[in-house]
């Protein structure tokens, strides 16, 4: 057995495997508003991230996603309590001062807030929050940037644009902070429309200058040297891939949303995938680029992806068999425990052991390196 097949051999798992696993868990979460499987999915992502994240800066992003998810739930509940129209139930928790609105608008501001409405909002918010955490877990385990390295040759230009955008967003933020600090030095307290204009000018100018610098550097290093193919082949590739992607999205939507019928769903999925396949195949013939040290796709990748697929499949099957367990008729009842789905989701936990451990960073211990980084960026900013 070659070392990359061993789950104990320390290496970075292929980011594609992590994203597939996370997308499967997100799909599972998307099919239910029962808090039991939802919280289970959340716990699974948290445990796997804690067990298998690396020392890289993006590995800390799960916490940020978790916070964002909590904010999302709170907003959902607040809006439901304040604005809900007819969804309030009989169990009134408290009564807010209300604002009379014209009956024709169908709106309600304030008034009674019932337990049912709050719980319903919580469950719906939780579903969205858990899906968000799945994305956060994928990003923490296999960063979106690393995933972009595996964009097929035909989509190379698009991939580069995404990478550049991912670099520029944080730089814009740090530029803005620097320029704001400079405003203080000129005696502005940074409020009002004028302040925004004064902030925008230097930041945008800086961003533009940096883009030009980057473009020059890429040109000087041979970017696009080997990809000058015939215009027609480029057009055909683009059309096939983008068109296929659209059809594929429709297919996925049809599959996940059971109200859709007809050609949506499985047929679109197949047609879209085929178009993309052909497009990528045609496109990859024209690129003369090579790839440095691609992550291998070995046994652990199959296992991690498999765990995700099992979790998603178990939930989908269980939803089909016992739909009442997944969309609660009465939110105030104690939510039932769908056994098959929960077991399936627990299989999604296995990557915490099946994925290879991330290699330790060379040199200084991770604690020291991280603190240095923070200091340096702050000082530079």
């Amino acid at each position: 057995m070659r070392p990359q097949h061993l789950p104990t051999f320390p290496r970075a798992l292929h980011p594609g495997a992590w994203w597939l696993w996370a997308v499967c868990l997100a799909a599972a979460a998307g099919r239910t508003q029962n808090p039991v499987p939802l919280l289970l999915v959340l716990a699974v992502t948290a445990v796997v991230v804690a067990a298998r994240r690396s020392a890289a800066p993006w590995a800390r992003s799960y916490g940020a996603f978790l916070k964002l998810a909590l904010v999302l739930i709170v907003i959902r509940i607040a809006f439901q309590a304040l604005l809900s129209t007819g969804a309030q139930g009989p169990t009134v928790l408290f009564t807010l001062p209300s604002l009379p609105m014209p009956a024709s608008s169908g709106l309600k501001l304030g008034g009674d807030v019932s337990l049912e409405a709050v719980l319903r909002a919580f469950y719906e918010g939780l579903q969205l929050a858990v899906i968000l955490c799945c994305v956060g877990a994928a990003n923490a385990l296999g960063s979106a940037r690393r995933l972009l390295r595996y964009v097929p040759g035909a989509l190379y230009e698009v991939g580069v644009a995404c990478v550049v955008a991912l670099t520029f967003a944080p730089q814009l933020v740090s530029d803005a902070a620097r320029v704001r600090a400079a405003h203080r030095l000129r005696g502005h307290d940074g409020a009002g429309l004028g302040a925004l204009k004064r902030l925008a000018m230097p930041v945008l100018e800086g961003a533009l200058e940096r883009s030009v610098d980057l473009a020059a550097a890429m040109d000087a290093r041979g970017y696009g040297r080997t990809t000058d193919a015939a215009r027609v082949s480029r057009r055909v590739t683009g059309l096939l891939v983008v068109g296929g992607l659209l059809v594929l999205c429709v297919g996925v939507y049809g599959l996940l949303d059971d109200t859709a019928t007809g050609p949506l769903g499985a047929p679109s999925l197949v047609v879209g995938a085929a178009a993309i396949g052909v497009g990528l195949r045609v496109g990859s013939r024209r690129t003369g680029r090579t790839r440095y040290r691609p992550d291998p796709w070995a046994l652990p990748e199959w296992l991690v992806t498999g765990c995700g697929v099992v979790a998603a499949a178990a939930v989908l099957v269980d939803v089909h068999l016992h739909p009442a367990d997944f969309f609660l008729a009465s939110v105030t009842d104690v939510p039932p425990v769908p056994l098959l789905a929960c077991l399936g989701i627990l299989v999604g936990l296995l990557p915490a052991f099946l994925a290879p451990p991330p290699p330790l960073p060379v040199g200084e211990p991770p604690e020291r390196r991280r603190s240095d980084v923070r200091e340096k960026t702050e000082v530079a900013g």
Partner: protein
Amino acid sequence: MIELDGAGVTFAGSQAPVLRGIDLVVPEGELALVVGRTGSGKTTLLRTVNGLVPHFSGGTLHGRVVVAGRDTRTHRPRDLADVVGHVGQDPLAGFVTDTVEDELAYGMESLGLPADVMRRRVEETLDLLGLADLRASPLADLSAGQQQRVAIGSVLTTHPRILVLDEPTSALDPLAAEEVLATLQRLVHDLGLTVLLAEHRLERVVQYADQVVLLTASGGAVHGAPADVLRDSPVAPPVVELGRVAGWDPLPLTVRDARRQSGPLRATLADLQPPAPSATGRETAGACRDLVVRYGRVAAVQGVSTQVAAGEVVALMGRNGAGKSTLLKTFVGLQRPAAGSVTVGGLEPHRLRPSALVRQVGMVPQVPSDLLYSSTVGRECEQADRDAGVAAGTTLDLFRRLSPGIPLDQHPRDLSEGQRLTLALSVVLAARPPLILLDEPTRGLDYTAKHRLVEILRDLTSAEGGGHAVLLATHDVELVAEVATRVLVMADGELVADGPTAQVVVSSPAFAPQVAKVLAPQPWLTPTEVAVALAGVVAP
């Protein structure tokens, strides 16, 4: 290897060419140094070598530029990527990927080299540049010196025969600069690489150069052996200026050469005294006591106590990341002290409203253009008058005094680095703060602009100029020698030295200016001091 035959460049919309009629040959294995005033076209010259001018920048190229047998008229920059490695001014702006290893591989991926070749070359380059420990590090987390080395490594992996570097050490502290230059030296000597290098800080690089190309104001070029070209050059390192003052022939380029010739000069100077630093006021403009500033769990400044008195120019030195910028930021209230106290004019800066703060302390940040946002110089000055609440025209008068002869309708971005710095300085000075802070003011300034800055700083601290106190953070030891009355050295957030300039810098291997190294143990710091003292001997 590099042949320029009557090369000239004119950019669209400008009347005068940036470069004209340049005939230059750089043979294989040579290190050629491009020098000249700011804005004399150094960057443009470097960019013609790999075709970025005119293919990328636009403009018209006259004459011929032939690189390794390829004419840049018919070869785009990407077609030259395998023979010319180009490293721009800001390494971070040229990084495409996010980790060291991927960045080293990027160029080879673009050229379509096979996987095993790429793997081997990345390993070789990691070793060659001493980056093996950092292979998986994110690029943004590296120190400036490491980033520069990665930028060099990233173009070396395609095995170019020519390396073109635009100011590789301008942002580095003296030791990190040594590191990068030592690497270059090794590449030239061990690999026979041809290197074309532009640099403002000649004192760091001139001893490595085989040929110096001096760009003149008219766009032409003079080239030849370093000692010949520098004899009459308007830009020259202090050791050369000392050689001119002492009338040495051949002109020394290194401290070692100068030291060997300096016996008689030292004997003459032994009886003379360098000018004593002018007495400073007693009034304290800014002070801190036991100051601690933290970012999370990292203490960037740990227990620093010092004060700056009116009329003083205090230089703050130390390696990148030693806490210099943080200390300055605390003095202008951009950082709150975690413990200890900081005061400017007796008030706590972080509690002041911005409008009150600018009357106590002013700072020119590392990137002076952060302070500027109007579309013309004139409007910028008017806005600064309003911000500071002073009579209309105050800022403009200041700017005219610091940088005469600049049209008011020019865009601040079109000014040279030095002019932009003086504009930002005028804006800050408009409110007449007793304490002025400067963060790395000499980045990108040539010797002439630096001399001008020294004059300005002396003027500001004199009683007639307002008796301002100045605290400047810098890596530039020659500037410190010229202008500072006192030096603070920081390391790891602590103050490790605080004393008169001569006392602190003369004995330090990293921070001693060249003249001090030549004339040690005598405490002379600048060629001007020596010239004045010698004139005193001859005159009576």
